[in-house]
């Protein structure tokens, strides 16, 4: 089950905590993995840690539209066809809405949503031609529930869900599936900085009384990437310890 031998996967934001877990798991299951990130040294370190075998790195700045297009073309060429695209890269620029600047809105939407549109557009047509593909977008529980201070981020993550459902319907006949994984609170460098009071408040809202691990998210991504999930499209898998039951 869930064997990805011979499949080629591109994971954006692969040097972030979540992206790294996803890339590691897809690699472990046999995929040839393209690692996208912004910092070359971190990409090289991760590639080396994966043994340098079945791995390629693709540095690119997702705020730059030309670089996003070039990333798609390069990955398609160098991996000789991307079978699995994991749009994981995302940024936050939090702030209360009434004080939110245009720049903070624009930069979050640009990276979290527009870059996904552009990169996916580059890679979808070849997938359609091959009559096989898996597009997996990392959304968030707050894209569905909302979260004060994150109007831009929540809009982008909700946007991914609508985007995925539309694309899923358009290309379902070509055996290309499009789904989202929506993580809840995940242990990371960011949540590690929270104080005990903040942590207690978060855990109080999670029936499982613990944060998730990157591996929990990676497992959902692996499922959607696998042959076994071939009949699943347009869906959002919520991995959140029961925090929101949607």
């Amino acid at each position, binding site marked *: 089950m869930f064997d990805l031998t011979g499949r080629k996967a591109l994971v954006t934001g692969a040097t972030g905590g979540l992206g790294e877990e996803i890339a590691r798991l897809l690699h472990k299951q046999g995929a040839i993995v393209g690692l996208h990130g912004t910092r070359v040294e971190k990409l090289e370190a991760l590639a080396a840690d994966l043994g340098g075998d079945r791995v390629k790195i693709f540095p690119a700045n997702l705020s730059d539209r030309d670089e996003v297009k070039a990333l798609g073309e390069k990955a398609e060429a160098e991996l000789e066809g991307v079978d699995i695209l994991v749009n994981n890269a995302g940024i936050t620029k939090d702030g209360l809405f009434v004080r939110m600047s245009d720049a903070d809105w624009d930069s979050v939407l640009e990276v979290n949503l527009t870059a996904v549109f552009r990169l996916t557009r580059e890679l979808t047509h070849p997938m*359609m031609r091959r009559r096989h593909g898996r597009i997996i977008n990392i959304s968030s529980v707050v894209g569905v529930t909302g979260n004060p201070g994150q109007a831009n981020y929540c809009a982008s993550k909700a946007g991914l869900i609508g985007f995925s459902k539309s694309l899923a319907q*358009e290309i379902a006949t*070509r055996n290309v599936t499009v789904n989202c994984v929506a993580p809840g609170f995940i242990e990371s460098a960011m949540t590690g900085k929270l104080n005990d009071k903040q942590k207690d408040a978060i855990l109080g809202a999670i029936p499982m009384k613990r944060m998730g691990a990157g591996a929990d998210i990676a497992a959902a991504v692996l499922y959607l990437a696998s042959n076994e999930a071939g009949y699943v499209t347009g869906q959002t898998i919520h991995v959140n310890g029961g925090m929101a039951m949607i």
Partner: protein
Amino acid sequence: MSDIAERVKKIVIDHLGVDADKVVEGASFIDDLGADSLDTVELVMAFEEEFGVEIPDDAADSILTVGDAVKFIEKAQA
């Protein structure tokens, strides 16, 4: 048949997987050759690539048959 017509025909056969003798000038992509709306978009993209022409959406909407495609490309290249 002109060179353009031959190349158009080849693209249609390859893409839709239909018999060559079905791909005649008056054949409708959707009604006669079993294309769906996504196929027609892909065909237009394939024509653009093959012939180095740009086919705007409103023009693409009027390309319903093999003959329509050949005529459009001949005109665009003239």
